[in-house]
């Protein structure tokens, strides 16, 4: 079972065609990689799920929670998974489905398992430590946002008038980057981003495309750019933008279509300029 390779059998056209031919009233199989906790062995369990119209992977997992019996009629526990909004805006329910990371809420059974007995495979994301079953600990991802100071350094929350004016083109650019929901699909797809359980190494291991893109987002903001030198200095260190291997998997994996490779290129240029400036300033 491939876990990280990016070779989509699940293209939009394939999914649309499946949706057209999906059989009503069928039963499909969910094959789920389970694990009771850190350090425990993984195992596979399969479940038969009767499909209702419009059913997604979350609805199937809810069915299993209410009927925790495997396909070979063995009692088991409900599957543990992370989820919240179920509208593909919170990023919580990301998992590896048929070998590719995506949100399970927007994964419709009609698109992935249109025929009787078709199997959908669910695994936890491989780049983060498993907490239990499909739930992984993505703390490192949020830590990266702190590393690149992904915020606007405002003068506090008191009323100090409006923010800077912004033209619509710049707003559209920033909005596009600001839709990043910290799901981690770009990291799952990235060959340079490797599993790192040791928290003390998070400051020197690759920050990932999402954090580089957030650095660019805040570098573009008139107040946010006050911290641009700090962000670029951080992204010059080990684990920064030079760790990117230019595989370009991230941009294809992003469910929100964020221009991650453009961000990496932009930050690369900014880092180079910053390095020159520092060289000539003798720093």
């Amino acid at each position, binding site marked *: 079972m491939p876990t990280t390779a990016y070779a989509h059998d699940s293209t939009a056209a394939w999914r*649309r065609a499946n*949706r057209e031919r999906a059989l009503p009233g069928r039963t499909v199989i969910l094959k789920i990689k389970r694990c*009771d*906790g850190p350090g425990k062995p993984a195992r596979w369990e399969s479940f038969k799920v009767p499909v209702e*119209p*419009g059913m*997604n992977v*979350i*609805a199937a997992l*809810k069915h299993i*929670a*209410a*009927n*925790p*019996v495997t396909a070979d009629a063995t*009692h088991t*526990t*409900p599957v*543990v998974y*992370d989820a*919240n*909004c*179920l*509208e*593909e*805006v*919170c*990023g*919580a329910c990301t998992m590896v489905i048929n070998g590719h990371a995506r949100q399970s809420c*927007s994964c*419709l059974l009609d698109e992935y398992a249109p025929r009787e007995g078709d199997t959908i495979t669910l695994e936890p994301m491989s780049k983060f430590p498993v*907490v*239990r079953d499909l739930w992984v*600990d*993505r703390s490192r991802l949020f830590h990266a*946002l*702190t590393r690149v*100071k992904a*915020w*606007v*350094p*405002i003068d506090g*929350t008191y*009323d*100090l008038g*409006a*923010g800077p*004016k*912004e*033209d*619509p083109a710049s*707003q559209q650019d*920033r*909005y596009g980057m*600001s*839709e990043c*929901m*910290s799901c981690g699909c770009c990291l799952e797809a990235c060959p340079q981003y490797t599993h790192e359980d040791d928290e003390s190494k998070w400051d020197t291991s690759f920050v990932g495309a999402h954090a580089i893109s957030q650095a660019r987002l805040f570098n573009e*903001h008139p*107040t946010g750019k006050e911290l641009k030198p700090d962000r670029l200095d951080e992204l010059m260190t080990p684990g920064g933008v030079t760790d990117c291997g230019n595989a370009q998997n991230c941009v294809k994996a992003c469910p929100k279509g964020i221009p991650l490779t453009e961000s990496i290129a932009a930050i690369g240029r900014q880092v180079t300029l910053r390095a020159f400036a520092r060289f000539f300033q003798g720093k």
Partner: protein
Amino acid sequence: MSKERVIVVGGGLAGLAASVRIAEAGVPVDLFSMVPVKRSHSVCAQGGINACNEVARQQGYSEYQHFDETIYGGDYLADQHPVLEMANWAPRVIDLLDRMGVPFNRTSESNRDLRLFGGSLFKRTHFAGATTGQQLLYALDEQTRRYEAEGKVTKYEFWEFLWPVLEGEGDDRRCVGIVAQDMRTMQIRALRAGAVIMATGGCGLVFGKSTNSVICTGGAASRCYQAGAWYANAEMIQVHPTAIPGADKLRLMSESARGEGGRVWVPRKQGDTRKPTDIPEAERLYFLEEKYPAYGNLVPRDIASREIFDICVNQGMGVGGQNQVYLDLTHKDPEELDRKLGGIIEIYEKFVGDDPRKTPMRIFPGVHYSMGGMWTTYTEGAYHPDHAWGEHRPGDPTPVDTQAGRGMKHGATNNMMTNITGLYAFGEVNFAYHGATRLGANALLSCIFDGLFCGTSVVNYIQTAEPSHEPTTDIDQSVFDRVVAQEQSKADRLVATASDNPDPTDAAHNPYAIAKEMGDEMTAACTVVKAGPRMERCLAKLAQLRERYAGVRLADGAMWTNQTLSFARAVGDMLVLAEVIAQGSLARRESRGSHYRTDFPDRDDDNFMRTTVARHNPDGTHTLEFRPVRADLVRPRARTYGQKASDKKSPVTDREPASAT
């Protein structure tokens, strides 16, 4: 830095705004959330955030009119002073978010763009595409992360609030901390705090499927209620007119779709099988536009939901004979749609498979928001007119300016404090601002306003009331241990049922099955249309479910990351809240805002312009009391939204004002 800490429970807009404001004032914050705060339910808010702005102002709009609209929209059930303060602060809240870097949509001249929203004839809604809640939450998440990096905020993510810790009796009773559980290790522990803010959102899961996120069980509010906090106007549940029905939840199709020109219709011919795009204009029934010429598709949500319900359920005019109507954007420029509504168009495409730019969306109402919630108090501000004012019309001189402290006294320590000293409720979890119906794009405002404005109240409470209190660090450990033991034994008992569960699929004992039945029952009895006998049946069913719940059995006995325990525990708390909602619905023998009774179709100001306040009794029953609404700023008037008087078939009765003016 203050010696006392503040605990904030919930990391949505209200919780994060409070955390930032309080940390900034030098009081350390412990922030609890069941999810990483960036994944909180606020991300689901789509349409925008209301505030008076210069364009609207020059057309005769004002903060005061925003206030008046909110009171009228809420059908006069909200205490009026806090609403005035919120409307007055709204432009300042927008400015702050703007400074934080929220990518608000812009006009060609780089000003903040505005859109129309329900309950107003003025463009006063600021927006960031169709994911405004997400963008606002991210801005506050970023500021919180900044304070976290500075050591001023400590996050407890994947921690579940279990119970408030109270100390003292009678007037001396106060909240001094919480007991919470790490959802991964299952460790249950107490944390001390000088004040606790509940910012835990709504209770959509009580209705099974809703537009709410997975964590919106109302469990935290229910636990505070069972510990002695009052719960107000529980029966006021907003059903959003336009949601996509789904197998796991109902997905919101923002009111902004109508704000940007979206039209709601059904074929005039019952059972018309033609494709919507093949049905000519003359054969379409734009029922909201016909009935409400002034507001059209932008009548408030309760009215739109009842009209859609009436068309589908009573008249059998739903598309394809089903419970669905068209929400049509196909006449709009697709590029403009992408720029302004891209987020929701994507959701519809992903989950339904049709392109709303080319074919009308099929939608039906879904449970969305709880106007009711934890009862909170406040100190009135400086504005006290000689008499309550009548309807405010555009361009009328406003009776009061927008200085801070006109509505609520700025910094008063009891602003949005519950009946328990030191326990506050901010955002959707309180009952304060929206009366009997919330206007679209006022929720984000009330959440952030609470966090900022009342966050200052919490700081003042800590700093001024603190000296008269024993420091929480000196309180005897037994006060905390007692609550830890209570929650530990509750958890142990539930987990132990897993070892004696011969058939985990047996619906009689299955927590998921019990929750589903509760949701189905509550949706059928306590949403768009209510009636006394049906609610009596609902209460009987809830009593049965509570009995079944006493024998609930889990299918997971693990002492590590046991989600079944968390859910099963919440089901018990949801059943309590469901009863409060049903009992409130039954006791309120009138129709007002979102609460519509077929057996009492009129508003009854003499008897029911009152807040329903529920108190939990030690034997598990509820005592309901009606307390007067503080309404001396604006006089009640009939809430018709310009409905044509000739329309006799309306499910919404044209009501007379209670007192002649």
